């Protein structure tokens, strides 16, 4: 395993960092309050090739290497986790299509997704089905020349503006995945407001009422919707969220380094107080450790190693907890200022908590990661 980035990866990281500093970080608190990101930002992300950049050149994408992809996610999240979540869900759907879509799906959707003319969103969670994905209640019936879907989807990230939904439903008790375009008859999209973290991620609730889609919109076949199609999307999502959590932790460290140097109490900078240094030390070491786990997961994913599943889960588990711990300490170091809207650390804490819930909660990882360990020994 290489521990150093290549010259190209370092240059790419510098580009991502400069873009975030100029175009994202200064506006993130406002977008958080508005519960939306502007269309112009999506245009700029598109121009830079930051959306769908995991799509291969064969399908019109950049085919960004796994590590550069991670660095992009970290740097974007360092500025705004809501924007990071746009990359996450769009790329999850693109990855699922690339992995298990038919040739027609790939030709029809991937080039447009690579150009971000078409945004993807994942519709798995429901009012009564979160971690227990196999218990989804949405039904899909075979109507001869079409599938007819009925059900409700909740917490669909960027569902408000997505043009393509990867929807999961039961076909005679077998989980299945469908690609459903926004204009499909019977599909209604309603904005969800008032979420605590990643507030600008433009969540939506979907209602499918006799939603009729052509037969060819089924991805793979019934029975493989969760075990393979959702699994592929979620594995991509965990990789993205893990790097995004590193970005939050790094942002916390950046904020605290500056604040602890400038803010004086008892006649000296906060940084001279040993209990503050203890919190900074945990943050400094945690963010490095989390980044190394992400790099290891990235290298294994790039090589197609079966162990990548476990390492990606481990990275997501650790990094999301690090993000929450770092943000919690960042608010503590900032004192009352940390609870105000004048500083970004309260947003970091709200956003960090989200990373412990999405793409497999901390508790789901705690149930699953030991299973990998048992299989190895």
């Amino acid at each position, binding site marked *: 395993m290489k521990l150093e980035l290549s010259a190209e990866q370092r240059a790419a990281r510098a580009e991502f960092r400069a873009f975030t500093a100029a175009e994202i970080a200064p506006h993130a608190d406002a977008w958080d309050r508005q519960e939306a990101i502007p269309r112009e930002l999506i245009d700029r992300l598109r121009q830079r090739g930051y959306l769908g950049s995991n799509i291969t050149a064969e399908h019109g994408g950049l085919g960004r290497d796994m590590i550069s992809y991670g660095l992009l996610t970290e740097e974007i999240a360092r500025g705004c986790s809501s924007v990071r979540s746009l990359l996450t869900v769009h790329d999850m759907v693109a990855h699922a299509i690339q992995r*298990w*879509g*038919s040739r027609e799906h790939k030709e029809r959707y991937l080039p447009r997704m690579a150009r971000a003319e078409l945004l993807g969103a994942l519709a798995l969670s429901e009012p009564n089905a979160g971690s227990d994905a196999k218990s989804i209640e949405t039904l899909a019936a075979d109507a001869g020349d079409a599938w007819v879907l009925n059900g409700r989807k909740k917490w669909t990230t960027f569902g408000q503006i997505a043009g393509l939904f990867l929807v999961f439903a039961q076909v005679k008790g077998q989980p299945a995945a469908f690609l459903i375009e926004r204009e499909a008859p019977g599909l209604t999209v309603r904005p969800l407001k008032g979420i605590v973290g990643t507030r600008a991620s433009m969540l939506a609730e979907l209602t499918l009422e006799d939603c009729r889609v052509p037969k060819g919109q089924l*991805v*793979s*076949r019934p*029975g*493989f919707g*969760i*075990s*393979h199609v959702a*699994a*592929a999307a979620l*594995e991509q999502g965990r990789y993205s969220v893990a790097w995004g959590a590193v970005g939050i932790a790094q942002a916390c460290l950046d904020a605290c380094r500056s604040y602890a140097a400038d803010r004086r109490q008892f006649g000296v900078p906060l940084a001279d107080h040993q209990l503050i240094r203890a919190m900074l030390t945990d943050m400094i070491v945690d963010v490095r450790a989390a980044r190394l786990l992400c790099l290891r997961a990235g290298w294994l994913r790039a*090589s*197609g*190693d*079966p162990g*990548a*599943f476990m390492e990606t889960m481990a990275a997501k588990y650790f990094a999301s907890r690090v993000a929450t711990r770092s943000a919690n300490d960042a608010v503590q170091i900032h004192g009352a200022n940390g609870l105000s809207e004048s500083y970004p650390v309260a947003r970091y804490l709200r956003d960090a908590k989200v990373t412990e819930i999405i793409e497999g909660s901390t508790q789901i990882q705690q149930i*699953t990661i030991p*299973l*990998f360990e048992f*299989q*190895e020994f």
Partner: protein
Amino acid sequence: MDDTQLKIKEFLSRFFKSHDLQPNEDIFALGFVNSLLAMQLVAFVEKEFAIQVEDADLDLDNFRSIDAIAGLIARKRGAAA
């Protein structure tokens, strides 16, 4: 068992530790297949045997036993040749 079958058996044995898996034994009937195995099995087959498992290959009968998996690999290699 040939080399391909032995490699498949070695991989699957991680999941069936106390069981001497036979070439034609139905791994689904044994009850140990979960989504972790499903995802890793696809990655293992692709990396170890340099083939691409595609959407049309997602059929339980292609993954039901050591023999079935070896058959899928042989067909994919034949198609690529």
